């Protein structure tokens, strides 16, 4: 005789429960996969009203960018020399050079603007924003509060002219068009002359014309630790960094020191930038 088991309801045992549960889950997954896309934003929710990040445009580096960058650097030097002039940091004889330099830089900018237009680009006749914040502003601040503003103004002018000379020469190796390379180097030669003139006038009588790259006895710095500028620092034209020390001695016994550099990706004036 069979005795019915009260704990087992017919048709709803554990096995049945598992089977039906699995079927339900599988059917749910199948229906979800086949469900229509009703649209709507699937991005995670945002808290607050701060705007989302803005991606920078993709910058293409080409000859026009090189030219725009050099045009901006010419204006950066104009801004520096003009500010130093306005503060009266140069002597009268030095000022005659500086006035000529400023005029030459403005003329160089016009020449570069012509090259840019010929290449189908848009001129950038204003200073380089990166150079302004990283070099020009700190150097001016230090020079204005210096124990010898004339010394620092001369050093700054020499360093920036040298930076221009190095930059032009550097970009000759990067530019694609021979005509643009030639245009760059014509202006680079002028910058080299200005750099050499300032060095000869500032330190030629004490340290001579030939730097450590030619004369092994030539010191890199003077007795006070300031870099010595030479009319001929080395046999070949250089493209390296230019050391600059300006300003008064601070509480830690140091002066403001920086290294000017030739243009790179962070200094380039891309086609999407405008004055």
């Amino acid at each position, binding site marked *: 005789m069979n005795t019915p088991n009260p704990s087992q309801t017919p048709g709803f045992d554990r096995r049945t429960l598992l089977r039906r549960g699995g079927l339900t889950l599988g059917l749910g997954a199948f229906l979800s996969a086949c469900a229509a896309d009703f649209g709507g934003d699937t991005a995670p929710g945002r808290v607050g009203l701060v705007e989302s990040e803005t991606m920078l445009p993709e910058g293409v580096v080409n000859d026009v960018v090189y030219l725009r960058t050099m045009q901006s650097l010419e204006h950066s030097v104009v801004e520096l020399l003009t500010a130093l002039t306005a503060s009266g940091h140069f002597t009268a004889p030095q000022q*005659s050079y500086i006035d000529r330099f400023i005029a030459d830089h403005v003329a160089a900018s016009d020449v570069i603007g012509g090259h840019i237009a010929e290449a189908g680009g848009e001129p950038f006749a204003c200073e380089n924003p990166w150079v302004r914040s990283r070099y020009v502003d700190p150097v001016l601040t230090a020079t204005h509060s210096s124990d010898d503003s004339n010394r620092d103004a001369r050093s700054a002018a020499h360093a920036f002219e040298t930076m221009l000379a190095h930059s032009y020469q550097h970009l000759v190796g990067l530019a694609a068009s021979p005509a643009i*390379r030639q245009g760059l180097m*014509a202006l680079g030669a002028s910058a080299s002359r200005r750099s050499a003139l300032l060095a000869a006038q500032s330190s*030629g009588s004490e340290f001579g014309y030939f730097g450590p790259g*030619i004369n092994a006895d030539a010191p890199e710095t003077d007795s006070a630790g300031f870099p010595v500028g030479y009319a001929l620092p080395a046999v*070949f034209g250089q493209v390296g960094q230019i050391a600059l020390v300006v300003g008064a001695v601070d509480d830690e016994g140091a002066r403001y020191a920086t290294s000017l550099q030739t243009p790179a990706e962070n200094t380039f004036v891309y086609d999407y930038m405008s004055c």
Partner: protein
Amino acid sequence: MAQVRPHRKGSPVTSTRDDSPQLTETDLRRKLLAGGTAALALTMVGNRRVSAAGLSSADLDLLKFAQGLELTLRDLYDEALDVDKGSAAWTAMSDSHESFAQAIAGLSGLSANERNEAVFAEYRDAMRGADRAKTAYDLESAAAATHIDLIGKLSDSGAAEVIASIASAESRHCVVLADVLGSGNDLGMTLVNSAQPIEA
């Protein structure tokens, strides 16, 4: 010699009688070898010769000219050095131009052994004369102008970069020589290069 027969419209392309010479396997191999050799010879003697450094023949010609000019300046400074024995300035200038010629040799593979005789003859006496510093200034100005001119003709960017570094240095030489001449305050002499390039 096989004749080329016109293909008449509407007629079959294939001919019942083929007069063209048949190529045996040996003939084909021989012709391929001959063609390859000819192509190689054309590459070597053709107008677009390429050096080991990857420079075109046109660039090599320009670099050869620049190198000859540098060797000429070296020898002209040696003439001045023969007058002002032991002069540190003339020694440094001579050595610099030797370095420039060697740099071009390193770049191009061209031996630095041939100066520009015409330029040397033109300036030799002046470099031994009383105005040798002014002559040197004029020479450096002409050399810088020449190199800047060459940069616009060179197709290779690496070659242009080397020539640019030489032009930069020679521009600085001009300022030093102007200062030596007592014209360091003459902004026309120090800042402006009014020289014409020396023609290749």
